[in-house]
């Protein structure tokens, strides 16, 4: 199926553990983004990528790492998870006129 998929949909992890959230798109859009959604804050940009091997920080990048070795994949890694990183994470890709969002990953850090 064409689209943008995130995995896992739900994840519980312990403080201090490394966790990777996956994002895959089938369109070959150049731009991809990672947002986190928290009550009272809306969506905030963590990292974005303009193309394979090109990434840049967004508004709230601390504690996160991204890579993009292939155009279609844009994984987000929490190097050492903290409770403040409990959130819903959305991946998106952009056609140039519209952003398409995945269904989100709900991450709980205990």
């Amino acid at each position, binding site marked *: 199926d064409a689209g943008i998929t995130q995995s896992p949909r739900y994840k519980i992890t312990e403080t201090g553990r490394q966790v990777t959230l996956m994002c895959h798109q089938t369109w070959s859009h150049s731009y991809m*983004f990672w947002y986190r959604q928290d009550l*009272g804050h809306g969506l905030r*940009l963590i990292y974005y990528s*303009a193309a394979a091997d090109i990434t840049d920080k967004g508004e709230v990048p601390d504690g996160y790492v991204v890579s993009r070795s292939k155009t279609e994949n844009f994984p987000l890694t929490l190097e050492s998870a903290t409770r403040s990183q409990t959130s819903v994470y959305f991946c998106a890709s952009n056609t140039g006129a519209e952003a398409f969002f995945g*269904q989100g990953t709900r991450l709980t850090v205990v």
Partner: protein
Amino acid sequence: AQSVTQPDIHITVSEGASLELRCNYSYGATPYLFWYVQSPGQGLQLLLKYFSGDTLVQGIKGFEAEIKRSQSSFNLRKPSVHWSDAAEYFCAVGSGANFGNEKLTFGTGTRLTIIP
């Protein structure tokens, strides 16, 4: 820096009534403006966008929005809401640096509840 304000956290509307969700933006140049809708447990779906031209833009599901530059507003409207419109609505502004491939700045969202 660009910013978006959605002053209403939660709005309740009767089914069949009209709707207006408020959005105020701050941006130095011509803004690229968007409205997205998020149903529970889902990602965001684009309702409509403004890049240039007519101040009134039409979107999907019967929604429209009007940009008023003098007020820096981009309010979302619908003449008659349906129970299926219950969702979270986000206004967003983009810089337009690459005609849409820009980073979007989102408002904090407005939750819409529909009562019978």
